């Protein structure tokens, strides 16, 4: 009976779940996809209601303080109540995936939903996608923990959560799948792709059941000519430049905000009120901006070249102010808005310069601009292409879409080698994609490479006795320990003392304490292997002693490291 109860307590040990790992993952993928889809819809519906409700008050002068209040409340909630950092959360998910096998806190599954609801609902310029990705990922991670799944399975479920969330919010299963694999996991393997695809389908189904099967941004048919495709090259360059501008604006606003010695919520409020002030004159820049995108794609936007360009640039500023000052939300939706306006602006420019040419409808350029911005900022061309195709239902634009995405990604990569999501991680050296050198070295620990077959000697030993020990050892290194305290005092390397070994006159006259090197560099058990290797390379040595609390634990050598490194790499990159 107790055995049965014990088994019930840990669902991870139910024999049903242990029968086949892949089946198990597929079942969990459905659950995670549904949960993260629901979370995404919840935020989406909440934001729609909130924005609609506040819409009536936008014309009062005090409405400029609404985003300030939202951003301040959001940062207070994150900082004081759930104790989480500001920002959109995607880098945290990528970091958790690469460093801790996708381990995320339970509270992350709702914290960003609430904070971004406050920020965006009040009018802040940010997107709800990154918060729902974080939330979906945390749901996947916590379900995996509840069922005591291993790291690999947990990472797959984190990907499922992200895919389900994106799929549900945009009614776009392929984008969800591609985003999860290309951006979040960075690893294309069957082990991940199948459950993630299932989760994306589950998330989309939830969205279709509750919201109806509607394409997010429907558009008219486009009649694309060859000269339109040529013009795309120019659009892609524009998109890349605006992507770089947005990335740099976000980062520099973040640095400026960090330099101010006010509490975080006050900084968020200042940023928010500035956004509110901008929004008072240009309401297009407020909120997640789905409405503005819809108008742009339908070709119903009446403003001229100048107005459209100003909106695109002001949206960049508003997004930088909202997110840089401490508001909570993602850059996905702002990217789509900015992209749409960059597209419109480029179309107006082309129509002005070559007025005799019959250009395709401006909605098409808005759509291509969106793909260009997403591909440029995320440096994830596939996500950009599939997202725009799915949210607009426009397969006929596939050719110019690929051209814009590819060129924009390449140019952005040239100017900013790491994408917006990965920039901080790359700078901290924490981007550890599977199968890379950094990942292998992080996974291996000094403990695993420890060679414990060294014979310890003490400093008062005569050379003749030491030679007897040399005879019975097959190592060239001999750690020297104090006889009483057993503390590590130095190291003898045979190469250093070879001349004395063959000199019988020295055998009784020299003590090991005189032969040892007392200033040998040591490694501790918790050192990073990349640092250990750097030390070895700097001093041209192949072995180092591992010492913890003045006690010798063993040696670490490049030979053993190579052996283990190779095995680790084979296991990490091979198929299960």
């Amino acid at each position, binding site marked *: 009976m107790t055995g049965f109860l014990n088994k019930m307590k840990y669902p991870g*040990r139910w024999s049903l779940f242990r029968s086949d790992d892949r089946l198990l993952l597929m079942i969990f993928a459905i659950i995670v996809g549904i949960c993260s889809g629901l979370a995404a819809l919840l935020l989406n519906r909440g934001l729609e209601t909130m924005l609609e409700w506040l819409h009536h008050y936008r014309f009062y002068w005090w409405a400029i303080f609404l985003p300030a209040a939202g951003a301040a409340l959001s940062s207070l909630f994150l900082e004081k109540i759930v104790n989480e950092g500001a920002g959109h959360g995607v880098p945290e998910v990528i970091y958790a995936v690469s460093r801790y096998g996708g381990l995320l806190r339970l509270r992350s599954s709702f914290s960003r939903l609430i904070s971004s609801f406050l920020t965006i609902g009040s009018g802040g310029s940010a997107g709800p996608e990154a918060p729902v990705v974080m939330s979906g990922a945390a749901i996947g991670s916590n379900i995996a923990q509840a069922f005591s799944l*291993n790291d*690999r399975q947990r990472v797959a479920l984190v990907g499922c959560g992200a895919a389900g969330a994106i799929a549900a919010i945009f009614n776009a299963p392929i984008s969800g799948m591609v985003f999860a694999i290309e951006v979040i996991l960075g690893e294309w393997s069957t082990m991940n792709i199948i459950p993630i695809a299932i989760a994306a389908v589950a998330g989309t189904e939830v969205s279709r059941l509750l919201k109806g099967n509607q394409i997010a941004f429907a558009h008219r048919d486009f009649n694309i000519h060859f000269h339109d495709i040529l013009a795309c090259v120019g659009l892609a360059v524009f998109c890349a430049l605006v992507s770089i501008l947005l990335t740099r604006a976000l980062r520099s606003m973040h640095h400026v905000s960090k330099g101010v010695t006010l509490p975080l919520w006050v900084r968020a409020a200042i940023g928010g009120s500035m956004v509110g002030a901008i929004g008072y004159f240009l309401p297009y820049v407020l909120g997640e901006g789905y409405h503005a995108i819809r108008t742009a794609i339908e070709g119903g936007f009446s403003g001229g070249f100048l107005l459209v360009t100003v909106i695109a640039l002001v949206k960049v500023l508003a997004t930088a102010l909202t997110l840089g000052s401490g508001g909570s939300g993602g850059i996905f939706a702002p990217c789509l808005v900015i992209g749409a306006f960059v597209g419109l602006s480029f179309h107006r420019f082309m129509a002005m310069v070559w007025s005799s040419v019959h250009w395709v409808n401006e909605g098409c350029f808005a759509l291509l601009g969106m793909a260009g911005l997403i591909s440029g900022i995320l440096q994830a061309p596939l996500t950009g292409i599939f997202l725009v195709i799915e949210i607009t239902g426009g397969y006929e634009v596939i050719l110019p879409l690929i051209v814009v995405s590819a060129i924009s990604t390449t140019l952005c990569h040239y100017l900013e080698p790491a994408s917006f999501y990965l920039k901080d991680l790359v700078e901290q050296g924490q981007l550890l994609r599977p199968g890379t050198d950094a990942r292998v070295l992080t*996974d291996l620990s000094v*403990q695993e490479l420890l060679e414990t077959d060294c014979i310890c000697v003490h400093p008062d030993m005569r050379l003749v006795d030491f030679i007897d020990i040399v005879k019975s050892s097959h190592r060239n290194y001999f750690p020297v320990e104090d006889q009483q305290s057993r503390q590590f005092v130095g190291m003898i390397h045979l190469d250093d003392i070879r001349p004395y070994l063959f000199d019988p006159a020295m055998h009784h006259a020299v003590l090991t304490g005189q032969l040892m090197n007392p200033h040998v560099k040591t490694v501790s058990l918790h050192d990073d292997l990349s640092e250990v290797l750097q030390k070895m390379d700097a001093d041209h040595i192949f072995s180092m002693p591992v010492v913890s609390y003045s006690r010798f634990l063993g040696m670490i050598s490049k030979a053993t490291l190579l052996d*283990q490194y190779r*095995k680790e790499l084979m296991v*990490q990159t091979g198929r*299960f």
Partner: protein
Amino acid sequence: MKLPMKTVAGGLNLPVSTIDRWIRQGRIPIQRSGIDVVFSHAALEKWAATHNLPFSLNGSQANDLPPEALESLVAAMQRGKVCHRVAGTDAVAVLRSAVDCIDFLSKDIRDELFEKLIEREGLASTGIGNGIAIPHPRDPLSRPPETPIIATCFLEKPIDFNAIDDHPVSVFFLLISPTVKHHLHLLSRLSFCIRDKAFVAFLRAHPDGAALFSRIAEFEKQLDDL
């Protein structure tokens, strides 16, 4: 077949902590029974093969003999013979007579041994001084004996063997080993005995087998006590 973690770690030649981490990360196939982790031999072998990892459960190498498995000098000498008055006027003739003393080896093996001894003497003399030589083939014979053999030959009259101290040689220790490792082990023990001046003098008196063995046994006891 179910395997415990330690055996698996040994089979893959990895520390247990690595296997532990691989289980946590889901990189190695396991079966759970309750909270215990067990490995299936067949699944693990398949997994190791697809990942190109060496995996074998009988990890110790065959030629890595533990020290106690190596023969003692006395046993090898008793297996060979002690021959007195071995005839011959030059090195080749004496070597031939010495080889023929080991009459329990077949004619073919004796011929091969003789050829290899001559070959080895051509490289450098095995006369190590004090009237003693240790002729031996450079490599083990094509059909080596299962255990090492040392034949002790006292020569009828000392001959010029090109020894390092240019003294004529009167005693041969003919050494035949199944492996180089055995050879080095016995050679090191033998040279320990020969370094003793009293033993060299004792050999000059051409002692009989029993006396020789008891002397050697004394030396070996000293060596083992070290």
